[in-house]
């Protein structure tokens, strides 16, 4: 089995896994970070979104071996101790979640969006959120949260 090493949330990690192991299972089952969720497992829902080298990807559609040597960020890496990341705080305050299952992927997509696009308006947020599905909220408060979070992040 290949030994796959990468940096997850700033920490060097390594595990022996089969080549067919998906990045999401590497993160959840081998590294023990279960904040990244498996929703659909078919690349539709976005509950598994993480950042690989600063770009949001679906970790259910990426092999762990493809991320060898990469810098990976998951939802667990956002907060600074007890202090929420501005995007997490915005989701909390704008009621941007109900059951919370899609939230890790939503927040990771939102942070990528805010990092890479400035002056986000509602239409752009909705368009760029195409790859994240929420079955509870109807999206209004998620969009509101992302707009607020992006502003808090300086966008």
């Amino acid at each position, binding site marked *: 089995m*290949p030994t796959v090493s990468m940096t997850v949330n700033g920490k060097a990690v390594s595990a022996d896994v*089969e*080549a*067919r192991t*998906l990045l999401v299972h590497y993160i959840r089952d081998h590294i023990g970070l279960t904040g990244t969720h498996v929703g659909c*497992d*078919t*690349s*539709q829902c*976005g509950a598994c*979104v993480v950042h690989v080298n600063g*770009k*949001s*990807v*679906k970790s259910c*559609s*990426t*092999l762990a*071996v*493809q991320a*060898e040597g990469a810098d990976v960020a998951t939802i667990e890496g956002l907060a600074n101790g007890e202090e929420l990341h501005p995007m997490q705080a915005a989701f909390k305050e704008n009621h941007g979640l109900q059951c919370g299952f899609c939230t890790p992927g939503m927040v990771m*997509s939102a942070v*990528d*969006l805010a990092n890479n696009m400035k002056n986000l308006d509602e239409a752009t947020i909705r368009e*760029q*959120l*195409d*790859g*994240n599905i929420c079955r509870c909220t109807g999206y209004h408060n998620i969009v509101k949260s992302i707009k607020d979070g992006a502003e808090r992040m300086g966008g």
Partner: protein
Amino acid sequence: MYGFDYHRPGSVADATSALGGADDGKYLAGGQTLLATMKQRLAAPSDLVDLGGIADLKGISVSGGTVTIGATTTHAEVAASADVQGAIPSLAALAGDIGDRQVRNAGTIGGSLANNDPAADYPAAILALGATVTTNKREIAADDFIKGLFETALEEDEIITSVSFPAPTSGAYMKFKQPASRFALVGVYVAKTADGVRVAVTGATSHAHRGPRLEAALNENFSASAVDGVEIPVDHMNVDIHAGAEYRANLVKVMAKRAVEACG
């Protein structure tokens, strides 16, 4: 997903020899189709040869009015490229509307073309713009590259290295999306080029194709109204739960008109 042996070569030559040594190997680019197919056990290659580690296959350059895009350049990189936006804005816009944001961060132009999905966007782009597909063995004109349903001119071990697009005078791609998959129910790319108007249609039939009737009408009179008189044959249109043949044929005209109007 069944097990496989994984290879990550650093050069095109090492990639072809890795594939040559495999029982039933496949190249892996962004993996946004292949991995999903393997998860469904619709494909079970013995080996995956990952092209992601080959630096020569990445990057975008512009020279003499031609944009050349390395095969493993992602859709997000094409969409965000100031060079592509400047030379062929319609191509940057097409790349920026493929799949969703996360798919665009992983999926590649070479992977999309080698897969040649009947509803993919890039096959329409290479046909409409008269692009040239460069491989480790030869150069292939777009018109010779697309062969059929998921079928291209590529040989088993051939690797796309880059794709060169001559900049048109103007161009526009209009897509009617299947809202769940975001693939084209029908997409039409219209380009005014040095060789006249070129039109390519994707999503409508088994593979992307040129639209000779539309081209003839638009070469005579480049206006949306010229599209009205064109008869789109319904015989070979795809039929599925999302759209019937007549609906798709009508969409070809609607998208063509919108593209002509967007060309200005």
